[in-house]
């Protein structure tokens, strides 16, 4: 059972009450698990959070425009009107009809506030109670029948929060009311409608941001001595390039894994073209620009990624290799053992060296080699990109050897440079599984358990059948058992 994240709470309040004040921005942040902020395992409400939810409910109830919310004139309203309010707004807030008992709980609050107060007082306290009700804050999965299949309202919520990060709209609720959300073709039609809307853009972008830790970009710090070219303007342009690229991959290439890792184009303006030293458009607007595929193709060859995965004054092949291992292959690399120095080997000005030479100790010392051979040989393939992603053929006057090697994968072998890594990863079944695993984490808001293995295998098949295209996969996902059954299983 998931609770609204900060973003979902804000969006839901905006849709429910027409209040766009983003009240949850002042809540304690959502914890991150595997990069995602919506993991249900972290959502138990502490006392501080309960206080914040109550405080927000008070503020919202006093700010709400009652004339728009109650089905009568607030100046002359009576208990019948309050009941109608509870039934109508309650259904939107709980995303399903209220039981008689649930109506009575709210009516009791109305009566307590109405006694000695006005009708409006009664309604405002009722609204407070609605906004702190677990039925509003959580999204319980309720089964329609003994097989554990979700009822139409639960399906409506799942669809809506997956694609729009907010409560179901009128059309979804009408479909649930009419019992249509038990039919797979109707579910797919609704999913398609939601995905075709601009409202899906931000939630989809959020998936990529959190999966690939791209939001860490705002914390990037570069040494001005090592990289005087790295200005705020450049950083902003790079991040826009990355965001625009991902957006294009999802919406124009159906979220193709191959495009994400290999597309021979990017989005550049004059400043970026000059930074990369490649031909490009004039002006400040980003435009789709072909790249030299031997040097740049896909996400991992972009300046922003190279920058994000580097320390302030140099490159760190370990970090780049670790990223590929963890984010794209979903393999965990253990932290360094106790008692080892984890300081980076620094370049000695007296003895010019390449990163490959400086990091050689990792493979020479057996204690280190066990794990570093998983990371360093991948990261070293990126050495043609410096700490801010500029192309270079040499380092400290010595030629760079960008040979990489994959081990412990289904695509093992050596390869020449980062541009040759992309196709291998895109074709890897481990990467395929990893993409699916991350959609599972984001889409279902939880960490899979061994009991989910079967379901994951089935989802991987479906993802494979779409040609590893995430957008098409999402339309398959919504009619999978994983999506339609309580706990994901029949």
């Amino acid at each position, binding site marked *: *059972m998931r609770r609204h994240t900060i973003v979902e709470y804000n969006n839901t309040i905006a849709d429910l009450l027409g209040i766009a004040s983003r009240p949850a921005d*002042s809540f*304690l*942040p*959502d*914890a*991150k*698990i*595997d*990069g995602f902020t919506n993991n*249900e395992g*972290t959502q*138990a*409400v*502490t*006392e*501080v959070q*309960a*206080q*914040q939810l*109550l*405080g927000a*409910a*008070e*503020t919202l109830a*006093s700010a709400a425009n009652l004339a728009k919310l109650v089905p009568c004139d607030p100046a002359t309203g009576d208990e019948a009107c309050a009941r109608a309010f509870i039934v109508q707004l309650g259904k939107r807030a709980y995303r399903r009809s209220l*039981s008689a*008992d*649930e109506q009575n*709980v709210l009516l*009791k*609050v109305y009566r*307590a506030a109405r006694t*000695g107060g006005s009708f409006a007082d009664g309604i405002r*306290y009722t609204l407070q*109670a609605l906004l*702190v*009700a*677990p*039925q509003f804050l*959580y999204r*319980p999965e*309720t089964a329609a029948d003994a097989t554990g299949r979700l009822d139409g309202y639960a399906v409506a919520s799942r669809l809506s929060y997956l694609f729009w990060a907010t409560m179901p709209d009128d059309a979804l609720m009408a479909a649930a009311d009419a019992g249509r959300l038990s039919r797979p073709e109707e579910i797919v039609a609704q999913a398609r409608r939601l995905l075709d809307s601009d409202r899906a853009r931000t939630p989809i972008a959020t998936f990529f941001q959190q999966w690939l830790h791209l939001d*860490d970009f705002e*914390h990037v*710090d570069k*040494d001005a001595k090592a990289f005087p070219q790295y200005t705020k303007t450049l950083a902003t342009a790079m991040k826009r390039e990355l965001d625009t690229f991902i957006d294009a991959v999802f919406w124009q290439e159906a979220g193709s894994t191959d495009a994400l890792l290999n597309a021979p184009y990017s989005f550049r303006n004059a400043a970026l073209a000059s930074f990369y030293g490649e031909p490009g458009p004039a002006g400040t607007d980003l435009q789709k620009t072909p790249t030299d595929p031997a040097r740049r193709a896909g996400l991992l060859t972009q300046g922003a990624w190279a920058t994000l995965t580097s*320390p*302030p004054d140099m490159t760190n092949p370990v970090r780049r290799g670790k990223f590929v291992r963890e984010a794209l292959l979903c393999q*965990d690399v253990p*932290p360094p*053992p*106790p*008692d080892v*120095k*984890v*300081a980076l080997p*620094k370049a000695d000005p007296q003895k010019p060296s390449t990163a490959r030479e400086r990091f050689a100790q990792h493979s020479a010392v057996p204690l280190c080699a066990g794990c570093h051979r998983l990371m360093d040989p991948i990261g070293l393939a990126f050495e043609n990109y410096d700490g801010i992603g500029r192309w270079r053929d040499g380092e400290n006057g010595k030629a760079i050897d960008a040979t990489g090697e994959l081990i412990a994968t289904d695509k093992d072998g050596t390869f020449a440079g980062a541009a040759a890594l992309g196709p291998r990863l895109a074709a890897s079944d481990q990467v395929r599984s990893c993409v699916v695993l991350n959609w599972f984490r984001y889409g279902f808001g939880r*960490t899979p358990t061994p009991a989910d293995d079967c379901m994951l295998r089935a989802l991987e098949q479906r993802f494979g059948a779409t040609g590893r295209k995430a957008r098409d996969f999402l339309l398959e996902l919504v009619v999978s058992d994983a999506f339609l059954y*309580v706990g994901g299983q029949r």
Partner: protein
Amino acid sequence: MIDTKPVSRRTLLRGAGVGVALPMLEAMRPRRAHAATAPRRFLGWFTSNGTISYAWNCLDPGADDPPAPVGMVTAGPAVPPPPKSETDFKLSRILRPLEAHKKDLIVLQNLDLSGKGYAHYESTVHQLVGRRFRLDATGAIKNNAASISLDQELARRIGKDTRIASLQLGVNLKPNDKYNQGCWSFGDGGQPMLPQDNVYEVYRSLFGDVAGGDRATLDRLRGLRRSVLDSVLENAGLLQARLGAADRRKLDQHLTSIREIERRLDAPSAPGGRCTAPGLPGDMLDWKKNDNVPVLGKLQMDMIVMAFACDLTRVATLMWANAGGGGRSHTWLPGSAGEWHGVSHQGDKGDSAGWEKQVRINAWYHEQVAYLLDRMQAVQEDGGTLLDNSVVLVTSEYGNGVMTDSHYHARIPFLLAGRAGGTLRTGRHLSYPKGTLHNGLLVGIARAMGVAIDTFGDPAYGTGPLPRLLV
């Protein structure tokens, strides 16, 4: 101090607006009858990236210490001689901003966190928990032994009677990073209790409930709040029946929080005559901005001092930065240029300029400690001052840091301030045998706070309080 405005009884009684917890309403009741003396308070203080022990402590480097970086000054005015006795010692350069409070301090030398080579988040978590923490395979803070942190244990034992069990405050944190490096307090079972670094939200929750009405209005308000809280419990009851076991547990935790809030509606918190709401800058201050750290830090310290003075809570932690610094640069501090974590590692290159920067940064944080202690001393209450009735633990996640050998785990800077109601004898420098683990310090603090325990955290790391700590 940023513009303090006293909160009059009249202001407080103007009551009904935002905020839930009815703070000051009950505060107007007569001072608690059952306690003749002021309560004891605990504040935990965390800054990041370790220290320079040569400049923090009066120490005699031993054979097992990391070597001094090339070009580093290990003798001379910056490095005072070893203490002559427990009470005859000089403060070294980093601690010198606390000269006026020397009589209020206990400087602790040679305390280690068990083990070495932790990452920043691991040692940070270890500090108040007293156990090794590890990430699980999913990157979540899990651990071979998840457990509660000292502040939360204290809150559980002595936080029952106050309106708020404990405060977790922060200064410009990035609590949302991959490893929860912006978290220092952990509830039962190791549940992260993220600090609040939005000063406006802190203010609202502590002092915001001050818009108006008379006694009858306030009683009505409290009654209505109770009916809203009751509705949560009733709604949950209706929902529970339809949930599975795991979901029910999740909802139960929520309900525990709701019941706790409901119970505290009647908490007999009782401010003394010095209970005043701290001021906030008139213009909205960007609490997410690095450059605002000095003013944000002062505001958070003011909040804590007043929350203690008003007896809204007796337990607090203040996290000055993420473990590892969270990307902070001390842009306001001359001679400290660069990102803090990077600065602290500059010694790896044998860079004495990095050493000097780290000393200056550390000294700046101790200037902030001095501000806090001044403010606590200015609050008069039964049995002396607020500082006399409190114990403040000042620390960082590494010892002679990151300078010479990355992530060095011995000789952690631990400093106590305040007498905890007379249970601690201050004005002392206590040196322990090398390798003494810090768990005895956690036990000692608990004892000083009147909580009788023999071990805290992993019992394998020691039993009983640190010798000589308590009166």
